[in-house]
């Protein structure tokens, strides 16, 4: 059979390639068309599948955003080579000067700045912006402090311990200590987020399996004919894979809008959040979409598995 038409086949290779490309482009079109048709055909079931997948992805997305916000805060703190020595209320100017002098003498200290209670309140007011008016407070709850600049963050733990023992010092805080606490919280956020989205993902998968099974059942006759006339298993599977991917991508898209929207709203109320809503959207776009599509395709493959085993 292949002998026919072989001679004189000099310039045929590109034509064959072109034909193959056209063929796969047409098959692709067929898969996408059939996949979308299946999605539309299932109406309510598809909507339910998108909704539960979206809930999954919102959980995943929210955990991702919270964790990366905390990460950012932690990193920002870690890079600070300073410690803040909070002073007890009611310290006289002489006592402050003594603490300051002792701090200045510590090795590695490159500068000490005094921040009075009033300065602290003003700075805090500035960070909050105009949304909250701190001048309405009956008394100033913020302590006065000495901001100590250091040449190397490695010295900070020992230095903080020493300074904490000085008379008149209430508490010493420095980046790494806060960072450790933040990182612990970040770990928990990620852990709980993973468990919650894992659980939701399972439910979402089950619902997608059942939704796509509806399409499979509606097309049983067609699938049987396809099998009998020699369509490959993947040719039969692809439309269902597309249907699953469409479900997941749609859910991912909506979830991304919801999470980013919620973040943007929060960011307006809390101006100190380190990430801009644009950064959050960029970070989420691939994670949430990818996970949505993975869940959708996983569900669709599970749904068709039984029908395609010979």
């Amino acid at each position, binding site marked *: *059979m292949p002998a026919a038409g072989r001679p004189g086949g000099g310039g045929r290779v590109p034509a064959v390639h072109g*034909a193959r490309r*056209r*063929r*796969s482009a*047409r*098959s692709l079109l*067929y898969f996408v068309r059939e996949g979308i048709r299946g999605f539309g055909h299932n109406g309510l079931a598809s909507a339910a599948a998108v909704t539960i997948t979206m809930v999954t992805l919102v959980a995943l997305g929210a955990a991702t955003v919270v964790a990366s916000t905390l990460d950012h805060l932690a990193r920002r703190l870690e890079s600070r080579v300073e410690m803040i020595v909070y002073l007890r209320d009611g310290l006289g100017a002489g006592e402050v000067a003594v603490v300051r002098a002792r701090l200045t003498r510590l090795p590695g200290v490159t500068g000490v700045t005094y921040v009075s209670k009033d300065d602290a309140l003003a700075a805090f007011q500035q960070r909050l912006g105009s949304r909250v008016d701190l001048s309405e407070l009956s008394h100033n709850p913020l302590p006065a402090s000495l901001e100590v600049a250091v040449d190397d963050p490695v010295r900070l733990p020992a230095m903080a311990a020493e300074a904490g023992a000085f008379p008149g010092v209430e508490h010493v805080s420095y980046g790494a200590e806060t960072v450790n606490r933040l990182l612990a919280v970040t770990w928990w956020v990620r852990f709980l987020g993973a468990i919650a989205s894992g659980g939701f993902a399972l439910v979402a998968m089950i619902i997608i399996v059942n939704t796509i099974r509806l399409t499979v059942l509606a097309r049983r*006759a*067609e699938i*049987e*004919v*396809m*099998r*009998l*006339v*020699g*369509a*490959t*298993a993947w*040719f*039969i599977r692809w439309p269902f894979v597309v249907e699953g991917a469409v479900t997941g991508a749609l859910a991912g898209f909506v979830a991304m809008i919801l999470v980013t929207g919620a973040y943007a709203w929060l960011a307006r109320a809390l101006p100190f959040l380190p990430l801009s809503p644009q950064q959050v959207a960029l970070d989420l776009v691939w994670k949430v979409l990818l996970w949505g599509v993975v869940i959708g395709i996983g569900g669709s493959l599970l749904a068709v598995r039984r029908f395609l085993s*010979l």
Partner: protein
Amino acid sequence: MAVPSSPPHGAAMVEFQQVSKVYPNGVQALREVTLRIEPEEFVFVVGPTGTGKSTLTRMIYREELPSSGHVLVEGRDVTRMPHRQVPYLRRRVGVVFQDFKLLQRKTARENIAFALEVTGAPRSEVRRRVGEVLEVVGLAARADAMAGGLSAGEQQRVSIARALVHGPSLLVADEPTGNLDPDTSWEIVQLLSRINLGGTTVIMTSHDKQIVDILRKRVIALDRGTVVRDEARGLYAGGR
């Protein structure tokens, strides 16, 4: 018309080697069936209902696997064929069913084209091949009617055209006249006979005594899963 390529030199078109089939529910459909069908033969497989005729045909296109024994198609052992090669076997073996298995909401032409499209055939080839097989089965005039609106005989013609569209070397028809009245049955059998004359091997199961006796082709008779008779130019019931 289809120009089937021949199997490797000397190989049978279909060969059953001591094939037995026991279904999970304990029913024994075939017992030690051994037979050989040569290229370009026309073979009737006859016998009462439930004697394993369908099981036998389904094994040829590997819709069913034997419990023991081997089935060879064009010299290839299909019982040992990996899953992903089965579609390519089915493009070499056209299958016709008693219940036609057409997609009712597609036209005759679309039903036939579907068989080629799902193998990714180029559009120009689909158009050409579908036109050809529509001519062969004599349905060119009804090509654009919905399958659901065709008569039973016409539907069976569409299903035969679909089976032929890949240009198979072998056509397997399981009770193709089972749902048809005698006149229509006769037309379908004549069509299959013509296709056979074009070089395509035809294996047809039937329990229609009249048709088998008129055609005087090779007859393989099954009874309770065993080949009880295999005659060239045979009759339905055997004897002279």
